């Protein structure tokens, strides 16, 4: 399907994170190899053989990361609708507090809308933070996604800086500070 590699890198490719996840180990090697080919300045390999079925080839869902804990669904909706109608939005909630913990999943109706979102919205700002988007095979009920012992995202346990939008200091370094209740934040629309 894909022609020769473009002279300009594409922004609608899945990230290294997805490619290296354990659940996809079987494809891992193959994919990593492809990626090396893509990243190098080498022309030799034009994808001679087709890799195994790509779980993301029709993906309509995006993982959205680096959100502020105070960013609401409505804000996500407002921005992400610019790439197409949103079918479903799942906010990532802290396991214990049930408050947003800085990520969500956005599901579109079409694969193209999801790709466009990678190209046009990933890496731009929402609520004054640069957000990250990544193609995702899709949210399924009960999926346990990237939350650590603290109940929030693991990255917030390792973080050493002070990030006001994500509950201040990292959570493993210090005991979690008195969490500001989502509902008590003044001036936020729901």
């Amino acid at each position, binding site marked *: 399907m894909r022609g020769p590699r473009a002279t300009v890198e594409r922004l609608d490719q899945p990230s290294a994170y997805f490619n290296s996840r354990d659940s996809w180990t079987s494809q891992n090697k193959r994919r990593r190899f492809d990626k090396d080919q893509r990243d190098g300045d080498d022309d030799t390999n034009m994808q001679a053989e087709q890799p195994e079925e790509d779980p993301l080839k029709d993906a309509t869902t995006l993982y959205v990361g680096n959100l502020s804990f105070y960013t*609401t669904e409505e804000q996500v909706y407002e921005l992400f609708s*610019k790439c197409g109608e949103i079918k479903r939005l799942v906010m990532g909630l802290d396991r214990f507090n049930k408050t947003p913990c800085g990520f969500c999943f956005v599901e579109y109706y079409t694969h193209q809308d999801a790709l466009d979102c990678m190209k046009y919205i990933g890496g731009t700002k929402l609520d004054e933070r640069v957000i990250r988007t990544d193609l995702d095979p899709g949210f399924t009920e009960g999926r346990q996604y990237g939350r650590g012992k603290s109940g929030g995202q693991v990255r917030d346990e390792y973080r050493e800086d002070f990030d006001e939008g994500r509950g201040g200091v990292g959570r493993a370094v210090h005991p979690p500070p008195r969490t500001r209740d989502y509902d008590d934040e003044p001036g936020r629309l729901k």
Partner: protein
Amino acid sequence: MADYDRRGSGGDSSYNPKKRRYRDDDEHDRRGPRRRFDAPPHVRVRKQLVAIAENAMRPWHEEAQAIATLFTDNWDDELLRANFVDLILQLAVEQPLKTPFTAAVVLVANGARPEVVDLLLGKLAALIEGKIGAGEWREVKLYLKLLACLQGCLEGEGVFPVLEELFARAVDLQTASSEDTVGTEIVKIILLTLPYVMVAAPGQWAQKAADLMEKTEIIASEPHTLQALIEPFQPEAGEESQPQSLIGLLQTQLQSEASNGWALSCLPRPWEFPLEEVEQRSKLDDAAKHALPTITIPQTVIAGPRPLFPEISFSVYANQDVESVPPLTTAAASLIRDALLDTINVLHFNRNITARHLIDLDCYFAPRTFAARATPFDKLRDIEAPKSTWKPEDVAVDAVFSQLFQLPTPEHKLVYYHSVLTEACKLAPAAIAPSLGRAIRHLYRNTTRLDLELASRFMDWFAHHLSNFGFTWKWTEWVDDVYLSDAHPRKAFIAGALDKEIRLSFAQRIKNTLPEPYKELISAEMEKDMPDFKFANDDTPFAAEGREIAGLLKRKAPDEEIDAVIQRIQSQAIDREIDALVASTDVFVTCVLHVGSKSLSHVLAAIERTKDRLADAGAASDAARTQIISATMAYWSAHPGVALSIIEKLLNYSILTPETVINWALVGRAGNSRGEALSIAHVYEMVFNTVIKVTGRVRQLVVKPALLPSSDTDEAETRDREIKSMRALFAAIEDALASWATGSKDEMMEASEGEGDSEGEKLVRMWGERWRRVFRRRAAIEEAFLVEAEKERARKAEEAAQNGEAEAEVVAEGLTQTMDTEGEAVA
């Protein structure tokens, strides 16, 4: 090559593609500093070709020669030979600003290895032929541009016969139909190719060009029938500037270039070597000439995958006291714009690179075409006469805006163009931000005349852009407009933009960015977390029942319990002589919204649970269905964005119909406000989104390929039904808007004390007219789309028939049926 193949063996000068991988895999690798190695030639050539002309310090001819030499010196490298030609071709369509430079490399290489040109021409000719056949006109144009740049090494008349044959097709198309857009596109391509021929082989082809342009004139100067619909500014009585079609302008510009000896001073000529390089110059002059392989152009050419519309010149920097962009009288205006637009639209998959090319645009045109980068606008005045005052940032920003404000729609989603402006602003804030500021002021000043659809795009972009840059804007300069009436277009812009900003952020945050007078525009309600529940107040009719239903919904009580309360509301309503269905619907919907007020997920879940009752309520009467919208808009009045999302979902559930939305907005809401609601941005947004939803669905049905011939009749029926209801919807919109636009609406007649010439009424009529223009255009465009789709289906059916397949007949039969019914609908 042996070294190269021995991967990971550590040969000291070998290029090792695995190296990166070692580093990725093993972070604790304790090797010393990276060993230096020379990449093999094919890698170096690729790297240099891809980055050609990016370095402004390097003379073009030197760069071209270096790459060409590296290539021809390694001619025996098969990998290099194969990749070189493909890469040149790929760059032509992926990074079109670089085409003249890669052409220069080919021309220099031609001196040492003429075979490479034959190799290239063979592939290029085949590509041009293929793209013409597929109707991929931009690619045709870009490949022709490369070919034109090679005119100097072509035998005979080179590219001219191709252009002439293309022109012949254009003539056929234009004589066949006055509404043809393909012929116009072809003429545009011919005219945009000519200048590159003229600079590639200077002095030789003036007569040929003159002959061709004499012929193109008739087509180029004829305004297209759709043109009036897609003009960015609403024409006003006694207006001076008539927007011009791009192609008409181009024709005049080139004619003046022709009479000026084809100076074309903006185009780069990287194949020209300085006089002291005697040897290279003579090598180039004496290099072999090549025959262009035949390019067969099919008898009938097609519109292709991208719908074609006439194009109109658009600039946010027109009529300034200093020319900061090329004036429309110069060919530079069209040539630079065209190259930039191709770059922007081709590179949609990497907005960072698009922005980079835009910032670096002066690298790709002749030296001294532009003023120095980041020259402040005020300093342009000090630039003395022969030097250029064209500000590269203005030229870049102008090009992006021309896409953002392209009617009917630009090639990509609007948000792509937002993101390009954002990135450009991030790359060179000091240079780009002031240009954007001037563009914003220009658009704001002219917002009254701006087409309403574009005004809405402007608002949307403005708020989105600010959200990426800390919501900073010099609001003080518009402070006087805060006191205008709400229906004034500039005040409406301010209100709409603030609402959009709040949607992306929150009210308190936005309030803090505003000067005092604006703060009143942000009400206390907007700063609240959740709207008040009106039934919490005992003075509200049905307060007790409202609270009861909310309670029942919260504890997910069985339907019967809710039924009982609804019955009570209805009988009370009958006693009070108000519409019982409307009353109970209002209470119920308000309660559902209240229960789901915490977030969109909550409200969607609440709707999901009650969708049957909502659907029944809506189906009971038109008034009740309309009340669903009224209740939603009332509950979320401080946050219309939320209301709009909810209404969108209710449309998906078919609890609401598109007609309900139109009626609510254009009859009910507009009526209650004597038409002033037409100035409210979110009312327009709601209607517009609804129409887009309907037309999108019709388009999907129309282009859907028939899976099975037998299912085609069913599909045709659905298609017809949907097309019919789309037309009915447009008719209803037109109906409602016509009376607002002409001032014949009852509400307006009643309100006006006789003459109907008050400022407010004039404004309402103007809004009516602006709305009407948008939806008339939408309707016309959808009709045009249907015609094209019909043609395409007929073409496919014919193809199938020619393949001699029996089923094909059935398909074709289905087709003639649809065409018949459509004829009726139009008549």
